[in-house]
């Protein structure tokens, strides 16, 4: 056993001790409470130590460890060496458990008199995660030490992908908190006492998990190049379903806190949210979906553990809920439109309906396999079921503002009717803009209704608490993101253009000229220069298409040009080149002037003003470029970094770019490399090279991103307020 494994074992044993002590303390042996805390603290310490150790293995390139060899290599930059920690399953389980332990330290204080029960249940979850880590942790050794590791999947070498998994797992950790509160409440026979302390934690869980999901969606949009951000893949669904359940719980808890209603529903929702996290983990990591998902996960031999994990906790929750069923009886909802109750109650229905229908779809491969013949589900299923539910949701959001428009005993304020009228106008406008699908028309109309009533309702009756402001902001975000989702998913226009080198083609109101391919210095990635003009502007797009040794396949990176009303999304499909067209080099001495393809280029002097800003050396060459009688300053830079020399191409007036490839400071000489200059084609070269590009226009997609951001900001405000409230008492 090596050090890492010892640390995990010790942490596991401490966690068992902590759980036992907490339950005994809850049983009446109050003296053990302090011991339980210390044991939990010890568990946390050893988990943190194990994590630090794994980091140090990555930083020290200790390829004797299988996990390190599988997910990193010597040439991996520091930033991604850190994120390689959670590139594989074993590491994510460690991250999950370590986050869980740290959150537990805060939970311990926040749970107050419920501490023994809450921490007992929460600690039992931790113990299970640690059991998985003990069984299959990231510290397995290889029989033979390889020279270098396999490296990190290039798709994961992206800043968004560095933060996406930690956010997701922090969200999973936080969803265990309301579950622990609910079970502790059931154990104590306390129907409503757990609601107030659990509320901010539930909100925080929704916030962090939501952030993780949205980061993943944005990463997919920006890097994968298939043009979308959400594919209803099992891996996405497995985090989406618990998130929706956590939102249902959040709304349910608000009702219970206010009126003591929904005791049973909330106990079930709190259990469901957490169990679905484990179920999703099982579904996406067990390999049962191997033939149904683009993602693939290898079976680590922990399926039995995960099944036992879900089974055990589900059984305990079920028994406790059944045992306390009578106690949980709560006053029914008051169906008075002037209060928030009916809307909150109905929102629960909608959230649950969405969660269960998506759950059904993602489970079908597993269920049908158990029943005999395996079946898959197409993404269209999710669109079919989620669209009408979103229509109802948007309508409900608008109606939910009615209490704000109520005039004491005299009906509804006319501002509400104004908002309704305006949103009908939005629907008509959408029809004129070409939206013909009746469901989409309804969705746009009702979303506008939700947005307008939300804003007007807020202006009419200012929210007094920050939590209320939070809900206004979140609901505004939902309305906007629904509109953005309809327009960008339903009304994206796409066209494939085949671009022979230096021939201009028109598509969707833009004209495209493929100007050449080159290798990005310092990487093995190929980059295409495409000159794009239209809508009064001209720019060079640089989508990438490259072969990845790691994935043994061609990877692509799209170029996205953002406008207020739409995104121009350029995704490379295919690149053909029969003959290498080298960039054109030009060596210049200080003060020397030469001509290249109609450009007169003069090297004036070095720019050393950026020296010392970043590690390594940064030198620029100040060039004077003359084209058509005009003079342009152009300054390409050359950097020596810890990963070797690097230089970025800089645009040249008239198209193409220039890179500073060599610098000789003593003799005052530079070598420049020009790419994609107009007229660089050899007469015969035209047919030898072409680029197939998928051009798409995604209308109003920024509304989607704005909406998701507002949802998160709103959640943040409410969580902040609720934590302050629960501390005040």
């Amino acid at each position, binding site marked *: 056993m090596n050090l890492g494994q010892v640390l995990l074992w010790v942490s596991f044993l401490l966690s068992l001790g902590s759980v036992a002590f907490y339950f005994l303390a809850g049983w009446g042996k109050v003296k053990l409470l302090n011991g339980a805390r210390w044991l939990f603290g010890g568990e946390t310490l050893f988990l943190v130590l194990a994590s630090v150790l794994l980091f140090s293995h990555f930083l020290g390139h200790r390829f004797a460890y*299988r996990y390190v*060899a*599988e997910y990193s290599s010597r040439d991996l930059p520091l930033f991604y060496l850190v994120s390689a920690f959670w590139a594989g399953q074993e590491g994510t389980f460690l991250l999950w458990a370590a986050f869980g332990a740290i959150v537990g330290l805060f939970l311990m204080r926040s749970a107050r008199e419920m501490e023994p029960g809450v921490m007992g249940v929460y600690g039992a979850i931790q113990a299970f995660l640690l059991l998985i880590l003990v069984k299959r942790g990231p510290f397995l050794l*290889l*029989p*033979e030490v*390889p020279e270098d590791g*396999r490296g990190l999947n290039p798709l994961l070498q992206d800043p968004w992908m560095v933060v996406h998994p930690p956010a997701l797992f922090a969200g999973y950790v936080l969803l265990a908190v309301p579950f622990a509160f609910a079970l502790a409440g059931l154990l104590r026979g306390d129907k409503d006492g757990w609601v107030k302390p659990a509320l901010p934690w539930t909100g925080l869980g929704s916030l962090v998990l939501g952030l993780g999901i949205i980061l993943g969606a944005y990463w997919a949009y920006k890097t994968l190049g*298939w043009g979308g951000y959400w594919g209803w893949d099992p891996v996405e669904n497995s985090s989406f379903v618990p998130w929706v359940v956590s939102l249902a719980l959040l709304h349910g808890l608000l009702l219970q806190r206010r009126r003591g209603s929904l005791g049973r529903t909330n106990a079930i929702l709190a259990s469901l949210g957490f169990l679905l996290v484990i179920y999703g983990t099982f579904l996406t990591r067990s390999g049962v979906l*191997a*033939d*149904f*998902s*683009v993602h*693939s996960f*290898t079976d680590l031999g922990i399926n039995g553990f995960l099944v036992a994990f879900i089974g055990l906790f589900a059984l305990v929750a079920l028994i406790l809920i059944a045992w306390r069923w009578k106690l949980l009886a709560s006053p029914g909802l008051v*169906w008075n439109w002037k209060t928030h109750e009916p809307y909150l109650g109905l929102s629960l229905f909608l959230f649950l*309906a969405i969660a*269960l*229908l998506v759950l*059904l*779809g993602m489970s*079908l491969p597993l269920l049908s396999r158990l029943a005999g*013949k*395996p*079946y*898959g*589900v*197409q993404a*269209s*299923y999710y669109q*079919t*079921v989620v669209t*009408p539910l979103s229509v109802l949701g948007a309508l409900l959001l608008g109606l939910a503002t009615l209490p704000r428009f109520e005039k004491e005993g005299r009906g509804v304020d006319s501002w509400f009717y104004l908002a309704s009228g305006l949103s009908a106008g939005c629907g008509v406008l959408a029809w004129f803009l070409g939206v013909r699908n009746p469901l989409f028309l309804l969705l746009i109309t009702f979303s506008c209704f939700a947005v307008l009533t939300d804003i007007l309702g807020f202006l009419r009756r200012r929210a007094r608490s920050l939590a209320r402001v939070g809900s206004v902001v979140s609901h505004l975000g939902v309305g906007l993101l629904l509109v953005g989702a309809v327009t960008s998913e339903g009304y994206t226009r796409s066209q*494939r253009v*085949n671009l022979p080198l230096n021939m201009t083609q028109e598509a969707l109101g833009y004209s495209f000229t493929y100007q050449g391919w080159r290798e990005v210095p310092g990487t093995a990635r190929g980059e295409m220069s495409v000159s794009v003009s239209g809508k009064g502007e001209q720019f060079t797009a640089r989508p990438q298409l490259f072969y*990845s040794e*790691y*994935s*043994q*396949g*061609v*990877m*692509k990176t799209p170029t996205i040009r953002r406008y207020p009303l739409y995104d121009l999304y350029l995704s490379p*499909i*295919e690149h*053909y080149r029969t003959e290498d067209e080298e960039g054109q080099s030009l060596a210049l001495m200080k003060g020397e002037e030469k001509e290249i393809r109609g450009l007169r280029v003069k090297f004036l002097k070095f720019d050393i003003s950026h020296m010392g800003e970043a590690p390594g050396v940064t030198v620029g060459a100040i060039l004077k470029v003359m084209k058509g009688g005009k003079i342009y300053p152009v300054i390409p830079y050359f950097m020596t970094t810890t990963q070797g020399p690097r230089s970025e191409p800089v645009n040249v007036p008239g198209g193409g770019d220039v890179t500073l490839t060599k610098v000789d400071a003593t003799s005052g000489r530079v070598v420049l490399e020009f790419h994609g200059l107009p007229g660089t084609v050899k007469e015969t070269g035209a047919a030898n090279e*072409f680029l*197939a590009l*998928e051009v798409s226009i995604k209308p109003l997609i920024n509304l989607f991103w704005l909406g998701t951001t507002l949802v998160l900001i709103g959640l943040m405000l409410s969580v902040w307020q609720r934590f302050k409230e629960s501390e005040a008492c």
Partner: protein
Amino acid sequence: MKGKAKYIVGLVIIVAGVCFGLLSLRRNMTPYLSFAEAEASRSVVQVHGTIDQASAKYDPNEGILRFNLTDGKGKTMPVTYRGVRPGNFEQATSLVAIGTYRGEAFQADQILVKCPSKYQALEKK
């Protein structure tokens, strides 16, 4: 609303919702079928097989990929796929195709490529 009416309305909504969900599911389900079954079926199905790389042809101008898929029993089926060729197609050994059998070939709407396990080299050591 009186107590009973409320429950009935609620029940009707729930039953309607469940029916809607199941119907949508039925319409969008794709069964895993053998080649013979897929050829007989007219709806959208999934097939799984080994790619005959020698037969693979890609028409870059049209963006159509054609290849033969072989099942475990030696039966071969031509597949055409219109769309972006998956990046790792050349290295792929087996593949899942989702689509409909029409005329002479299986017209795939979607293909999921399965690569030889990247861990094999390490496992063998």
